[in-house]
């Protein structure tokens, strides 16, 4: 291969790296405002409505492995290309610690398969240090972001209910779907246990909001992306409409190497990238560069963008780039509900995800851990996939049939078939998702010895959970058992204990990693300012989870969307004022 750098002569107004929630929103807002934007996406083109990409409504037998997750991490039908491991794109770990990094290489990134859980951060979530003395406050408040949350609600669509629940701000909601049977039971159990259970808040259209997008047809498969555009994916809702403005140039398979800077002015002048398929080298020029490649990838690009002027990486005069990495905590438990045996069959798919959830309801001042969590619920009569029926030998002797017959564990034949039928749809699952305390000791950095197959130095992670997170997971497990007890269920398996951190998932497994280039007012302790603009380079912005100061016990996407819109408005304003 001859090595030739292909430089485009066009200078774009803006170059955006990454087409997920943050990049998609910036592309949408800036192209609508008339800017000429080039969008670099490391993966291929993807449109949830194009038949060649559609897995929605496929049956399990259309996958030879029946949807098993041994290749795609969430199974064959899941709409995320990529995963925790990507061939030729390694990352490494330090000091025996673990961080698992999920990357999705496709238009829209991880928004194509995400859970659509669309929670606003509450007023307290922007000022945790003021409340508990840990971590750092954001340089902005809920009131700064609220107008953008409102606009995101209207543009993208989210269902929910007005609850006036503390620190769980209401939005502009579409009607929520009614709870499923097990969700009604969980709601009742919550009343007994004094644990609130309220309608979930998901970005799924239960009513039409415009002519471009359809409404939900209740197949429970948002993780496969929606051919009706009835849920939020950055591909369908933001990037494809941005392409229709004629102002967006989308370059797929463009794996960014570095942000290029002018040695004299120190300003960003464009981005270099390698074509992942052709392996050709390119640069694009732009007046403004916006990074939205994900918290890890954005930090990696900046750290790799070294020059005489920026020897520690671009925008890293503080030396904290890559630090304060944090993911949501996660722990889960399942249960069997004997009273749901032999249940009547009907279609209870509903929307893709839970119809009810539990927001954080307690006061951490009265607990031995500083931050909260919410609980997500699963269960019901799912479409079978690989793993269905597994472990019946641990179930069928424990519960007598409706005729009072107790069977021997295991077995075969017509009697066994009856067992699969009587147990179908009688399980529930609970998953806690909590806030971790961001710390300088959890970070990613450039591995001095390792490059990926494109020759780009890779990230090396160092991450440990602290007692804060472990105690929180313990509390989750106690709560799960309380709910299971209240509902009359039988917990599955053994209760996780201190030997495995109470079931606390390894960092990275919840795929909410944020914080690697946090925003702040102090240039010594932050990388970006409150407008998501780099302190060191005024025409460099980041609009993904990298700028998060703290994660909250919410999912990050709605805040990424709101902050990206806010940064886009600021850019438009600054260009008008000729400051950019």
């Amino acid at each position: 291969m001859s090595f030739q750098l292909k430089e485009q002569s066009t200078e774009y107004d803006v170059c955006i790296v990454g087409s997920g929630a943050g990049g998609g929103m910036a592309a949408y807002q800036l192209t609508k405002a008339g800017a000429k934007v080039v969008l670099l996406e490391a993966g291929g083109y993807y449109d949830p409505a194009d038949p060649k990409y559609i897995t929605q409504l496929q049956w399990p037998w259309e996958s030879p492995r029946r949807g098993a997750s041994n290749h795609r991490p969430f199974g064959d039908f899941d709409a995320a290309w990529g995963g925790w491991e990507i061939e030729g794109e390694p990352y490494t770990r330090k000091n025996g610690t673990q961080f698992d990094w999920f990357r999705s290489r496709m238009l829209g990134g991880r928004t194509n398969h995400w859970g659509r859980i669309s929670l606003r951060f509450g007023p307290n979530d922007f000022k945790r240090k003021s409340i508990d003395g840990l971590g750092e406050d954001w340089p902005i408040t809920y009131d700064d972001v609220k107008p953008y949350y409102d606009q995101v609600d209207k543009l993208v669509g989210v269902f929910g209910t007005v609850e006036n629940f503390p620190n769980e701000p209401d939005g502009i909601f579409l009607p929520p779907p009614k709870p499923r049977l097990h969700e009604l039971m969980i709601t009742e159990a919550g009343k007994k246990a004094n644990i609130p259970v309220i309608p979930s808040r998901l970005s799924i259209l239960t009513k039409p909001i415009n002519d471009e997008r359809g409404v939900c047809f209740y197949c429970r498969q948002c993780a496969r992306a929606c051919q009706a555009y009835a849920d939020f994916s950055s591909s369908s809702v933001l990037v494809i409409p941005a392409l229709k403005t004629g102002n967006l140039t989308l370059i797929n398979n463009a794996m960014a190497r570095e942000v290029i800077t002018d040695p004299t002015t120190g300003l960003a002048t464009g981005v270099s990238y390698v074509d992942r398929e052709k392996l050709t080298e390119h640069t694009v020029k732009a007046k403004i560069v916006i990074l939205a490649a994900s918290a890890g990838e954005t930090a990696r690009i900046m750290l790799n963008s070294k020059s005489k002027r920026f020897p520690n990486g671009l925008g890293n005069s503080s030396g904290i780039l890559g630090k304060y990495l944090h993911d949501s905590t996660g722990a889960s438990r399942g249960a069997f509900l004997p009273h749901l045996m032999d249940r009547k069959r009907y279609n209870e798919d509903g929307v893709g995800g839970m119809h009810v959830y539990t927001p954080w309801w307690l006061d951490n001042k009265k607990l031995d851990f500083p931050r909260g969590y919410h609980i997500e619920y699963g269960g019901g009569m799912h479409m079978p996939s690989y793993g269905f029926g597994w472990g019946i030998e641990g179930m069928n002797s424990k519960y007598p049939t409706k005729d009072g017959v107790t069977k021997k564990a295991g077995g075969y034949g017509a009697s066994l078939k009856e067992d699969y039928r009587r147990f179908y749809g009688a399980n529930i699952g609970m998953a806690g998702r909590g806030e971790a305390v961001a710390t300088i000791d959890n970070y990613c950095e450039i591995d001095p010895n390792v490059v990926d197959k494109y020759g780009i130095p890779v990230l090396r992670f160092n991450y440990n959970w602290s007692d804060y997170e472990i105690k929180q997971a313990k509390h989750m497990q106690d709560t799960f058992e309380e709910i299971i007890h209240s509902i009359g269920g039988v917990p599955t398996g053994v209760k996780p204990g201190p030997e495995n951190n109470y079931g606390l998932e390894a960092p990275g497994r919840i795929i909410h990693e944020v914080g690697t280039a946090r925003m702040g007012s102090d240039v010594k302790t932050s990388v970006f300012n409150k407008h998501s603009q780099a302190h060191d380079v005024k025409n460099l912005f980041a609009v993904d989870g990298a700028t998060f100061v703290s994660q909250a016990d919410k999912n990050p996407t709605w805040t990424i969307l709101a902050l990206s819109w806010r940064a886009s408005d600021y850019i438009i304003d600054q260009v008008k004022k000729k400051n950019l």
Partner: protein
Amino acid sequence: MKRRDSLKALTISSLGLAGFAHQEVLAETMPKQPDIQGNPDDINIPAGRLKEEAIRDAALMKQKFFTDHELATITVLSDIIIPKDSTSGSASEAGVPAFIEFITKDMPQHQTPLRGGLRWLDVESNKRFKKDFVKLSSGDQLKIVDDIAYPELAKPEFTQGASFFSLMRNLTATGFYTSEIGIKDIGYMGNTPNMWEGVPPEVLKQYNLKY
């Protein structure tokens, strides 16, 4: 070649299943993969799959892991585990043996337990009846199966056999209930555009719940 015809050809030639009377059902359970010869650039990529995934699946499809004898034993066992009854058909009618062949190639952790378990079964069968398992009368087959089908009650000399049988039971159940026949049997009624109006009133009443 029409999709179904090509699938039939593929199924018969590459999976050694000729002779069973359920090719059509089996064909429907196999992935869409007409042309797996030659240049990978010519590969047919099923909807929603990436090219490298289609190439991997096609390559797996071309390989044969179980011998004809092993697969015949798997077929007999799967039909013992899930036979035809008044509600639905049998495991083999639902294409379970072909599923087990594929998944064993795709998940190598199953290879030794299954291959070794099948051999354990024939050794046991020959000890008792001087014949391979598939050659036994169904009555004699069940004599062995009864010794290994109930793991908590298995005698010490049968615990390995019981582990194998549990794996067979689990793979058979997963293969069966993810087939068209099995989904109908279990009563899953979704995966189709519809309106969710909540739990049906008679079900709410049954559980004494209301909206």
